[in-house]
Every structure is written in structure tokens, then in C-alpha cells.
């Protein structure tokens, strides 16, 4: 019952958006009337949307790569330095992104990076960096949980008795052990990055606006147009989640 209510609450707005995106007219009626693909064509033809679409994909991709590259050594170190300091660092990493609002980070960036010393506000690099800060903890947690679950310590001990020096242990045992969590973590990172609005809205310059930022403008225009633009974002996020979610092997 509760689940059904939850699903209605979640799916009803999405259903209405989908309806609105193909509705001819939607003014002063409960549901839109008529059928058209005009709104999608208009969104597709809009250069600012097209640029934002590419920017979003680029930012998501680079964020994904950067978090993966950073999360591997980070999770590996946190796993092996499980002393008090390591445990504290791990907890901080897990709670900080929840505790610190993206809005706070955004204002902070504006203060720091609009200075003459660091005039990077509005650059694509800063935008990606901001997304990395937001998503890194999720990726690190996913990898760390995987290492704990697999009991990497014992696997590495096994590898060492078989003749593997530390670097060989890392490349032939630790890295392959992380592959499933890196894939599932990447899905999460891409989905989060594509939907991110708060920080992007504050940090992005006019030429590097991400899709959700441009989307806000659409709601000042026709309803069908706004609906179609939103459906595109939804499709993009779902696609990001669905494509890499077919790993070659089972969970290992």
C-alpha cells in the first residue's frame, strides 16, 4: 500500500511531463489536448539546449573518469589504513557531502575562484571539479564496501605467498577486485552529475551551462516546450543508468 502510494507520488509527475511533452495545447485543462512532436523538434533545434546537452555529457564523462581515478587509491588507502585515523577519514568522507549543502560549496567557489589569484570561475575545469567533489564520496564508498566484502587483505596475503610483490598484488588482485564497484559507482556518478543543478547553476558560466541549468529557462516559455526539455533530461539520466548496468560478469 505504502509502496503503491510512493510509486504514484514518484511516477505521476513524470507521467504528466511525458503527456505534456507531446500535447498540442495545455492551458486551463486538467490534461493536455492534441498530439504533436513539435516541442521535441523545437528543443532539438535550440542551439543553447544543444550546447548544454553536449556540456552535460562532457561534464558527466570527465567527472566519471576523475572520480574513478581518485577513488581507487583513496578507497585502497582507507581500506588498508583502517586504524583510528583511517576510520575517521572514512566517516568524514561518507558524511561530508550530506552535511555540507551544495549551495554552501557553490558560494564558496564563487568567493575563491572569482579572485584575481584564481580566476577560474566559469571554466569547464572548475565545473567538473565541483561535480567531482560532490560525487567522489559515493564512488569511494562503493569501492570501499566492495573491498571489505571481498576480504582483500586475505586475497593479497594469498597473492604475496604466491610470489606477488606489493605492486603486483595491487595490479593483479586489488584492481581487478574493484571492477564491479567501479562500474556501479560510475553509473551513480553519471546519474548524479547529469541531474546536478544547484552547484552547476552557481559555478557554470554562460558558455558552459549544463542541461538542468538551461532547462530552468524553458519553464518561462510554453508548457509543452518545458515538458519536452525535461523528458530529454530524464531520458539522458535513465540511459546513463541503463547502459553500463550490464556488466560482463555477475557480482564478484
Amino acid at each position: 500500500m505504502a509502496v503503491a502510494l510512493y510509486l504514484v507520488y514518484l511516477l505521476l509527475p513524470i507521467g504528466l511531463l511525458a503527456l505534456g511533452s507531446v500535447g498540442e495545447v495545455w492551458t486551463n485543462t486538467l490534461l493536455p489536448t492534441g498530439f504533436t512532436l513539435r516541442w521535441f523538434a523545437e528543443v532539438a533545434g535550440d542551439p543553447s539546449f544543444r550546447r548544454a546537452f553536449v556540456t552535460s555529457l562532457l561534464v558527466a564523462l570527465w567527472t566519471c573518469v576523475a572520480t574513478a581515478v581518485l577513488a581507487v587509491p583513496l578507497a585502497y588507502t582507507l581500506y588498508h589504513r583502517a586504524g583510528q585515523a583511517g576510520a575517521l577519514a572514512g566517516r568524514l568522507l561518507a558524511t561530508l557531502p550530506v552535511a555540507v549543502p551544495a549551495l554552501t560549496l557553490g558560494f564558496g567557489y564563487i568567493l575563491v575562484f572569482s579572485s584575481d589569484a584564481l580566476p577560474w570561475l566559469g571554466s569547464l575545469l572548475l565545473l567538473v571539479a565541483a561535480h567531482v567533489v560532490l560525487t567522489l564520496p559515493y564512488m569511494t564508498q562503493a569501492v570501499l564496501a566492495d573491498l571489505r566484502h571481498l576480504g582483500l587483505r586475505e586475497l593479497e596475503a594469498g597473492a604475496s605467498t604466491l610470489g606477488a610483490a606489493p605492486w603486483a598484488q595491487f595490479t593483479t588482485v586489488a584492481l581487478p577486485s574493484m571492477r564491479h564497484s567501479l562500474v556501479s559507482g560510475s553509473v551513480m556518478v553519471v546519474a548524479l552529475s547529469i541531474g546536478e543543478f544547484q552547484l552547476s547553476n552557481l559555478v557554470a558560466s554562460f558558455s558552459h551551462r549544463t542541461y538542468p541549468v538551461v532547462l530552468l529557462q524553458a519553464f518561462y516559455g510554453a508548457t509543452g516546450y518545458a515538458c519536452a526539455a525535461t523528458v530529454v533530461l530524464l531520458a539522458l539520466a535513465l540511459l546513463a543508468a541503463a547502459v553500463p548496468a550490464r556488466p560482463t560478469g555477475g557480482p564478484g
Partner: protein
Amino acid sequence: MSIELQDVEHRYAGTDHGVLGVSLTVAREELVTVIGASGCGKSTLLRLVAGLLPVQQGRLAIDGRPMAGVPPWQRPVGMVFQSYALFRHLNVLDNVAYGLRMRSVGLADRRSRALEVLDSVGMASHANRRVDQLSGGQQQRVALARALAFGPSVLLLDEPLAALDAHLRTRLCDEIRDAHRRSGAATLLVTHDQHEALMLADRVAVMARGRLVQVASPRQLYDRPASLEVARFVGHANLLAAQVLGPGRVACELGELRADTSAHAAGTTVTLLVRPEALQADPPAGAVNRLVGRTTRERFLGPTSRWDFTVPGVAPGRQTVLLCEGPVVAREAVALDPQRLLLLEAGEPASGTS
């Protein structure tokens, strides 16, 4: 192909746990099992030999070469872990070939060698399976094959059969023994299971509180335990507090018994140790150490039976229950062969069954 340990010590920081001075030599082609209760330091001992933990004091040598400062990956040691520690991202064959790959053996060579070793443990047909498609017993065999494939001169096994059911254990015991014979490696196997320890070993080392309390052949350990502690740990035993009266005579709650007292002076307090199968059922009248009583509990075990025989004590109102074992259950009397009555001086004198 040998392991030499000389007063080896590894104490866990801030505790009295670990390995607190162990001297032991395992020869080429020898299999020594280490038994002891959990926390006695037996797994720590294996990790010291493997180099996974540092030897803090004492000397460890493998094949006559001192191992101080030699990391695990440079030691000629193969190890089977309790959890098997198989790599789930590799198939069975590549798991077994891993040690050869780390030694830069070519792909074709290492695969054919791995297949050979897999074949010797009856797992060649599973070479291309994923590790998580195997049963516990199969994983155990793969772990054994992986530890032996690169030809180590020392084999270490940490509770290799603990995760398997009893039936499979006996069979895998034979397989471990065979694999050990073929490899010729000096082998240390840690277990908390006395049956496993006795069945597999050339020699058994009993460990308690970080030290070895006795190292002996399985038969010697069973027949002549060095202390009450060892006697309690290995096999079942009837233990009786007693005192040496004079040559060939001891007194206990069963009255006066004949025993071999040659090693003990008159007046010494001792503990008598009687194995259940050393009690003879319904001996002829006039037999030495004949005890009259009755069977109070019977357990049929197939080829043999184990029963409780209750003997009225010398003191009024006291009785002694003896655990006996044999094909025939006693009806009215049992006899204690004086030659199989062991006198132990060390430790607290105590009565009871263990």
C-alpha cells in the same frame, strides 16, 4: 626443503598472545600438524613462517636460509588459507597458474603445469570454471593445487578442512596427504581437530598459550601424553587422582591398583590416565585390577560401543564412572591393564573424564 624455528617469538602489541618462543624443525617430506585451542597461537605460527607477520625474536630458516628480512613473495612457501583466498576474477586454471605467472613463466608453460597439478587433485575437468561455481571441497582442492603449482619447498595449511562437512574431511585428509607426498615439501598444517591432526601427521605439535607443550608421533602422543593438558586435548581419557603407595602399587578412589610406578617415588601425588579402550570387558575372575560394577549407559557406534561403567568407590556413598570402549559391552566387571595405566605427575591432580 625444511623449516627450522628457534625460540621464535611474535607477541601481539600490549598482550600476552601470539607465539611466545617456539622451537621446531620440520624436515623435508615431513608433515607436522599443530593443534591447540583457538587463540593458542597456532595460526600466528604459520603466518610467521609465511612472512605475513614479522619474527620479533628468535630465528627462522627455510632450507637452511635465514628468513629475517625476506618478504613473503620471496619465500619458497605455498600456503592454503582457511578462507582459501581464491581470486574470483580468475578462473580455476589461472588461479593455479598465478604463482608461476608471478615467477614470469610463459603462458603456455604455466597453463600446462597448472593443468597437471589440477589433474593430480582431480580438478582438471573444472579448469575453465569460475571459482564461485565450485563447492567448498572443490575450492579447497584448487587452493591446494595453487599453493603447490610453483613447487614451493614449504607448504603451510591453515585449518584447511574447517569449512567442510565431516564426510568430505576424511577424504580430503587423504588427498592432502597424497599431495604432500608428491611434492616432498616440508609441511605444517594447523588445525583444532584432533582427529585430523592424528590422521595426517608424521608428528603432532600440541600448542597452548603460545608455546609447544609436546611434539611427538601421533601414537606416542596418544599413548604417552607428556602432561595432563595434552592428555585432555587428545582423545578421550579417564583421569583419576591417585597416590603412589610403593613399587607397583597406587591408591585411588577405586581402591588399590597395580601399575608401573618405576618412574615415580612412593608418596608422589599423580593422575592416572586410562584410555577407554584400555578397559577390558568382563575379564576372567582373578584378573589384575578387576573392578566390579555395572554398565549405566551404552552408546552403539557400529564397529564399537562406548559405555559408562559405574564402580562403587571405596568410600561409602561414592561411585566412579569410567568411560569404556570396545566391541563388547561389559556386564559385571572391567579390568585395567597395568601396562596401559599411565601415571602423570605434572599439573593439578584431578579426576574425571575428558
